[in-house]
């Protein structure tokens, strides 16, 4: 049985190799009483010099292998070792408390690490890793222990680690290290940035690769989807070998499209947007040529914590995303919790049918304090970019009107307080409930845009629980019933001069794209790493041809027929 582990896609690409677990031995620091403190300080200084010499060496090597800018991190490490505010307190502690240098170092470093980790800026928080890295190196020398390093590897491997320090990543031998995966880290951690510049696939923040993977297990790292598969089956190996080859060939072609518009052969332009969950994802959107953010899932702000996020926390996150997108559209979906996404601190009763239950806008309209907090944070952030807001799970027009009224109330209050709010924030709804898709012409008079959420629209239309494997065959994106609903929504919107996006899996699917293009979809929102591929595909299609192709799929009998028709007439055509 293969083991599937999910994490954060930190660096694109695919690799298949044996696991090499990088186990850092724990450096055990004990508190000791020192009588001759002057001698202890001399020893400390000697080991500092030794550590500096070693860092100079790594810096030179990194500069040569990876370039000057990647070596800068070690210049920073060297400065930490020369930092009077760091070194003097350690010496003072040795003298005043008569303790050993290792212990004084540990205490002072812990104070600084704590200081940086508590900053409200992700970038600064990650600087704590630099202090930790330097401290470890120096402690190793003080204890006379060799610190394990990945430069001893001499066969092709995937590195499995709790986390990789900057010095670990810099010492990775590119000839042998094919990719890595870690328990902790995010898209902006050092290891992720280094992996992207080294162009090796990486999946970080998996929480449990160290526990689940043993040395020498065969491991697939899919840095495109953020997946790690250990002990893959023959079938999985074949699938990923194919995926890897295709990725590498096409990467070269796609890179040329990064700054291009998305235009069909006959001059029809559409917008390719990305779905994101956190501000850290924006970098990936820009790197992959995203023209907008079509879905910002705000529930991640609420998850993995013990209480609701404050207005200020939310404001900062939204503002960061809007500013980083530099005026490109950002569609933020208000809290979509419930169903498969629970917030334990809300203490909501268990439901028999959570997907049909008290979730998303239903919950927000009932727990208005929570909803209003989010809306205020959003309204305040609107001054910093091109914000559009959409409500999830709208089933009736009244729900939309109620949510809109609350938004307008909050807007007016903020404006009365003198807070700057953008004047024309477009307001839209997710179309994921069949009743709304059917009534799209009525909604179209009142909303500014629609975003079709196919994952839920499919499960509600075919009445098949997404989480139930026994009915998973009914999850049919190409079912003509779904295509007709989509057509109905797009036509209704266009009749009223409104635009339509799609933010489900379907928007980035190569079989669906030709049909959606033919039906007139304006915005395709997908995972960032799918954008260049989609742009490449669309640039080879003609809108006029796709219109007649789409027309034909609408009257087909089932999903299979649609898929085969597109595969043979468009994909291989």
């Amino acid at each position, binding site marked *: 049985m293969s083991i599937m582990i999910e994490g954060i896609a930190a660096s694109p690409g695919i690799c298949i190799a044996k696991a090499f677990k990088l186990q850092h031995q724990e450096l055990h620091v004990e508190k000791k009483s020192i009588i001759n403190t002057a001698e202890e300080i001399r020893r400390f200084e000697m080991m500092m010099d030794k550590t500096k010499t070693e860092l100079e060496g790594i810096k030179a090597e990194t500069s040569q292998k990876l370039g000057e800018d990647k070596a800068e991190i070690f*210049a920073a490490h060297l*400065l930490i070792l020369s*930092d*009077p*505010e*760091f070194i003097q307190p350690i010496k003072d502690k040795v003298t005043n408390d008569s303790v050993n240098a290792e212990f004084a170092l540990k205490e002072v470093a812990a104070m*600084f690490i704590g200081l940086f980790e508590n*900053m409200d800026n992700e970038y*600064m928080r990650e600087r704590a890793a630099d202090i930790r890295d330097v401290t470890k190196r120096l402690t190793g020398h003080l204890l006379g222990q060799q610190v394990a390093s990945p430069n001893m590897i001499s066969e092709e491997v995937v590195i499995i680690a709790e986390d990789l320090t900057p010095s670990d990543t810099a010492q990775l031998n590119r000839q042998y290290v094919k990719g890595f995966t870690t328990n902790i880290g995010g898209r902006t951690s050092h290891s992720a940035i280094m992996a992207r510049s080294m162009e090796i696939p990486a999946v970080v923040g998996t929480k449990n690769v160290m526990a689940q993977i043993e040395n020498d297990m065969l491991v697939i790292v899919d840095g495109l989807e953020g997946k790690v598969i250990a002990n893959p089956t023959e079938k999985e190996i074949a699938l990923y070998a194919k995926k890897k080859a295709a990725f590498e060939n096409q990467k070269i072609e796609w890179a040329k499209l990064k700054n291009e518009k998305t235009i069909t052969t006959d001059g029809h332009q559409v917008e390719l947007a990305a779905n994101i969950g956190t501000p850290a994802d924006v970098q990936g959107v820009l790197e992959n040529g995203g023209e907008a953010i079509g879905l910002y899932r705000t529930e991640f702000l609420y998850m993995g914590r013990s209480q609701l996020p404050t207005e200020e926390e939310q404001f900062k996150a939204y503002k960061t995303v809007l500013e980083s997108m530099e005026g490109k559209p950002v569609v933020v979906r208000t809290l979509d919790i419930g169903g498969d996404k629970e917030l334990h601190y809300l203490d909501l009763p268990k439901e028999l049918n959570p997907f049909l239950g008290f979730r998303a806008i239903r919950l927000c309209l009932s727990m208005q304090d929570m909803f209003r907090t989010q809306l205020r944070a959003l309204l305040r952030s609107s001054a910093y970019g091109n914000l559009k807001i959409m409500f999830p799970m709208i089933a009736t027009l009244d729900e939309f009107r109620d949510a809109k009224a609350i938004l307008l109330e909050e807007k007016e209050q903020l404006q009365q307080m003198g807070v700057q709010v953008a004047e024309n924030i477009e307001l839209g709804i997710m179309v994921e409930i069949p009743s709304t898709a059917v009534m799209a012409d009525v909604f179209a008079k009142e909303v500014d845009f629609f975003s079709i959420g196919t994952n839920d629209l499919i499960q509600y239309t075919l009445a098949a629980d997404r989480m139930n494997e026994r009915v998973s065959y009914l999850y049919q994106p190409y079912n003509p019933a779904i295509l007709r609903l989509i057509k109905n929504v797009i036509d209704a919107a266009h009749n009223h001069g409104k635009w339509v996006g799609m933010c489900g899996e379907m928007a980035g699917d190569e079989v669906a794209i030709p049909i959606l293009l033919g039906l007139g979809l304006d915005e395709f929102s997908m995972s960032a790493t799918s954008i260049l591929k989609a742009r490449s595909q669309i640039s080879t299609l003609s809108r006029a041809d796709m219109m007649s192709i789409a027309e034909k799929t609408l009257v087909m009998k089932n999903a299979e027929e649609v898929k085969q028709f597109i595969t043979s007439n468009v994909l291989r055509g």
Partner: protein
Amino acid sequence: MTEKNYTITSEQGIHARPATVIVGALTNFKSDVKIEYRGKQANLKSIMGVMALGIPNGASIKITADGEDEAQVIKTMDDIMKKEGLAE
């Protein structure tokens, strides 16, 4: 004692890289050099002190040099601010 005020104009503020350049350049001066932002002061010869201030774009900062080479310190700071695109 010599003082000088700057307004930071770089997108990312004084982040790790320019902080490294500043601290590296000042290490060998004899003067005491301090940087002040929002009433908090740090030793400008300390990389962690500078980074801990978390100076963002648009921040007003004051740099104070005290010692025999204080004039050269300020001149060096002017050069770095310009060269690194940190302030006008």
